[in-house]
């Protein structure tokens, strides 16, 4: 394989990996605090692309304003989801919360089918992002550069928020010990709400970028990326933000490069993530950067 073709695949893999990373952060944050696989996260991601589509195509909002609005609305959607589907079950058995999460995911998907229609729609192409840059023999969309840079910027903003602000401190406390942080006067419900809001906003950014990279949107588009991003979070060590980003990059790169080198396996594309997941889990049951869970009697 020629070097420039390899470079092309590499940039592709990195940008796909950063998309996975953005969405995986949302999974990992929620899991870190609630010990809940937020199955509806992929559907929030789907909702964000539809919101963008409608605000740009139907309402004609300029893209930068639309992006901002979509990110805020999606954050609010995440908070509403948490308040309606998860908060009432705060001290229910885990399986009930899980079922509620899956139910919420189905509700969002079916609502999207009814409200937005089941037929795929074409995401608007924005010249600023889709412009092709030529580097020697490699031609790359500007988007391919923007995505990883933005992921890293957002990651550092998020890490700053978590390490240096009061809400961030509350989040860390709640994820360490629910009851004690409540005793210490932390408003647990508010903290969880903020977590969902941040996670959903990141999913919105991921969704917008996904829509531009793969410009066909449909109501079930969130399912596969959702599952893959969750896998990325698990591979990296769930509950660990660095781990989620690492997992996302690993997953994106492996997926793109394997297909590039072994084109015969294209049909098995979606299976790679699961195979990788199972391999990682078997050798490091808590993921690459996860903490060892001590068994308590």
């Amino acid at each position, binding site marked *: 394989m020629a070097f420039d073709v390899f470079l092309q695949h590499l940039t592709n893999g990195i940008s796909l990996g950063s998309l996975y990373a953005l969405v995986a952060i949302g999974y990992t944050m929620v899991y870190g605090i609630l*010990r809940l696989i937020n199955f509806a996260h992929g559907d929030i991601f789907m909702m964000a692309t539809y919101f963008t589509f409608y605000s740009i195509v139907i309402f004609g909002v300029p893209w930068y304003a639309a992006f901002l609005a979509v990110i805020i609305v999606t954050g609010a959607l995440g908070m509403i989801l948490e308040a309606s589907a998860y908060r009432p079950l705060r001290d229910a058995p885990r399986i009930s919360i899980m079922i509620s999460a899956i139910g919420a995911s189905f509700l969002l998907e079916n609502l999207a089918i*009814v409200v937005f229609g089941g037929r795929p729609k074409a995401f608007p192409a924005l010249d600023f992002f889709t412009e092709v840059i030529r580097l020697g023999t490699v031609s790359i969309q500007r988007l391919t550069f923007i995505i990883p840079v933005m992921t890293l910027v957002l990651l550092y903003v998020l890490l700053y928020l978590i390490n240096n602000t009061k809400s961030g401190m509350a989040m860390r406390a709640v994820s360490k010990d629910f009851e004690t942080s409540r005793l210490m006067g932390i408003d647990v419900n508010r903290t969880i709400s903020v977590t969902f809001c941040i996670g959903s906003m990141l999913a919105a950014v991921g969704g917008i970028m996904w829509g531009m990279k793969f410009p066909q949107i449909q109501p079930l588009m969130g399912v596969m990326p959702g599952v893959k991003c969750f896998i990325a979070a698990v591979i990296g060590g769930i509950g660990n933000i660095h781990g989620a980003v690492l997992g996302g990059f690993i997953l994106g790169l492996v997926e793109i490069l394997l297909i590039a080198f072994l084109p015969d396996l294209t*049909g098995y594309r979606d299976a790679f993530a699961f195979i990788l997941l199972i391999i990682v889990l078997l050798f490091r049951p808590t993921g690459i950067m996860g903490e060892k869970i001590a068994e308590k009697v």
Partner: protein
Amino acid sequence: MNNNTQKQSPVIRLDWIKERNPKLTIISILLLCIFLYIADNRFDAYQVRVLNLCAIYTVLGLSMNLINGFTGLFSLGHAGFMAIGAYTCALFTMPVTVKDQNFFLEPINEVLRTIVLPYPIALLVGGIFAALMAFLIGAPVLRLKGDYLGIATLGFAEIIRIVITNLQTITNGALGLKSIPAKTNLWWSFGIAAFTTAFLVWLINSSYGRAFKAIREDEIAAEAMGINLFKHKVLSFVIGAFFAGVGGGLLGNLLGAINPLLFRFTLTFNILLIIVLGGMGSITGTIISAFIVTIGQEALRFLDQPFSLGFIQVPGISGLRMVVFSALLMLVVLFFRKGLMGTNEFSWDSFIGFFKNIGKRPGKPLSKGGTES
């Protein structure tokens, strides 16, 4: 002394039939048979199909409840096992000509083409293949716990589905199989549902069943009591997968057409929902909720057609049914956390006691001396 001689006497004692509970059981089984006979002859095709689905979902729900509810293994791999059962059973029951019609893109594997088995044997083989796959998967995966196990089994189910999509000469790939012989009838589906129920009741009350429950309650304590964790987990997983495979085979030959998209995570979720609604760890709860969920999904079908709400005419919106269904489900999960039955089972004593007590309004009766927890 007297007791001892009774046990050893070779004469088959029929005294138990005179008691109330066995009598009621036999009567209700007879009633069910009569009902099935009438249904088989009088009901239209749609109603028969829904009844078949109810029985199949009972089989599937029970098999998943064995893994998730009784052994406490959070497994989400059911759709994969069902896919194996459904494909195996369908391929082995299809006559050669139908197989040739189906595989027009690429010819079917020559060995597979010639094998045609009778339906019950094909079902059995489907179940065995699913169980074999569960055995292979279980060995590595069952070392994981909790959510990790759930995700890994979900992953395996998805891998099975993707492999089926890509094995063009064996499964016909994404095109799926069509005109599968409609061998599933009420007698088969209800018969297998009854067999599954009886087998699981027997299993749950055997020493294996007690070991399963011990593992569910506390793995470390169970291990300390000398229960071989791994062996029992694999056993439960394999038996559950076997019945999932049989249920999948029934489903495939009922629907008449299957494709890989049928066996997505949605299907596993439907079954998970049945066992959560019925109560994790309750056999009767699963049976009741399998019927409620299946019939409920059909009953909501009117939402997809135009209907009038008294003063406003609602145009038919396809998909509205699933919105309402998922919203209802969420409400049920939010407000009835333990499901219909919790971990309790139906018994004639409590059933009759319930009717006797309706007038008296007693406090909470505690069956079997258990406590509310």
